């Protein structure tokens, strides 16, 4: 549809400049699912607009930062563990793969889960979250009741309102999706459904404050999702 195509292009251009408000971001999310994912011209526009946006950074006059900033950085680099979060994680390799080869546009995301963003931007957000000293990163594990495997990390900053799930999972069978649940004292709230991209890579953004919950659970459910966890428990972790 031509109107939808032009609207998508407008929103992609503004998105590349980081200039969308919440309402338009929601519209773009919808268009990603209904149009952009299947429109090669829009996907090309998305990447090219982002490339243009990245080049605009050079239009700002370069300014040498004060020596005190460099000194602070060097002090922090010496004192902080290098790639600590990644090195400690048993699923580091798969997460790195996700962040480096991610193609969010191929993932189908519904409900509260996710936000349509470019891979680099979303990867940047995860990087930002995981690099904060106050961030928490937990590895989800199988509870032993399912043969389905997966390697997923949950990352969040308490009070930050955003929880990221990154890793890899097998693509569920047709008419099935993965559903994310956030638990508090045994009661689980629906956080949305998702399907990994065809390669199995997962990067999901849940807009919720994980600090208000004590567990995250991923189950396999019918494509419409369920009102409570009723399918196979795939992965879980305490928050």
């Amino acid at each position, binding site marked *: 549809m031509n109107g939808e195509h032009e609207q998508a292009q407008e929103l992609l*251009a*503004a998105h590349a400049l980081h200039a969308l*408000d919440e309402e338009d971001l929601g519209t773009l999310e919808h268009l990603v699912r209904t149009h952009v994912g299947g429109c090669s011209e829009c996907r090309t526009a998305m990447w090219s607009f982002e490339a*243009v946006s990245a080049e605009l950074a*050079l239009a700002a006059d*370069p*300014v040498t930062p004060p020596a005190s900033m460099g000194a602070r950085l060097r002090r*922090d680099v010496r004192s902080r563990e*290098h790639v600590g979060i990644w090195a400690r994680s048993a699923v580091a390799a798969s997460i790195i793969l996700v*962040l480096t080869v991610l193609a969010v546009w191929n993932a189908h995301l519904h409900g509260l889960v996710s936000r349509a963003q470019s891979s680099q931007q979303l990867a940047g957000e995860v990087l930002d979250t995981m690099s904060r000293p106050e961030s928490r990163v937990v590895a989800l594990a199988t509870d032993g009741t399912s043969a389905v495997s997966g390697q997923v990390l949950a990352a969040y900053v308490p009070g930050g309102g955003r929880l990221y799930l990154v890793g890899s999972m097998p693509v569920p069978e047709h008419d099935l999706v993965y559903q994310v649940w956030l638990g508090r004292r045994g009661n689980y709230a629906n956080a949305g459904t998702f399907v990994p991209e065809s390669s199995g890579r997962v990067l999901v953004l849940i807009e919720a404050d994980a600090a208000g919950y004590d567990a995250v659970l991923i189950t396999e459910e019918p494509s419409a999702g369920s009102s409570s966890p009723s399918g196979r428990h795939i992965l879980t972790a305490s928050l």
Partner: protein
Amino acid sequence: MQERPREMRDAELQALVAVGDQAAFEELYRRYAAPAYGLALRVLASEPLAQDVVHDAFLALWRAPEAFDPARGSFRSFFLSLVHHRSVDTVRREERLRRRTQRMNLQAVQDEQDVADRVAEDAWLVDLRGRVLKALESLSDEQREVVELAYFEGMTQARIAERTGVPLGTVKTRTLAALRRLRRALEEEAE
């Protein structure tokens, strides 16, 4: 011997950073601290906030360097985009920074720095910057205004419409036209 492409060398440095090479990290800092700080300062108009943004971006790079993938673009694009996003997020949190009366004189800022070195830009960066500025000059005044307000002042399109008194729909069409023209101009410059 033919010199290898610049971006490949950045990627090589980043790969060394990934295994904890502090000298490689220092070299990336030397190359990108000034463009990153200039960008953050332009968006934030605040020295302390700009320093925090650039410091945190470099520290994030040190702690989780794998987030950059050379296959998806240049290190420069990735890193400066990261700085831009952090700057815009910060300026929106610090709404008071938007008051233009408090906007600082960037030249004065430079004069007050504890290091007042002239920025010794690498030649390739000077060349790239020239191409970007030339591409910006190819925009109409109206197109350039929406790009400036969105990219360098961190405004949403709704806010731009408020500021300029131009209908939101017009802001959107101008933004799209501007990005298309910039894309074309940059492609032509690269040929």
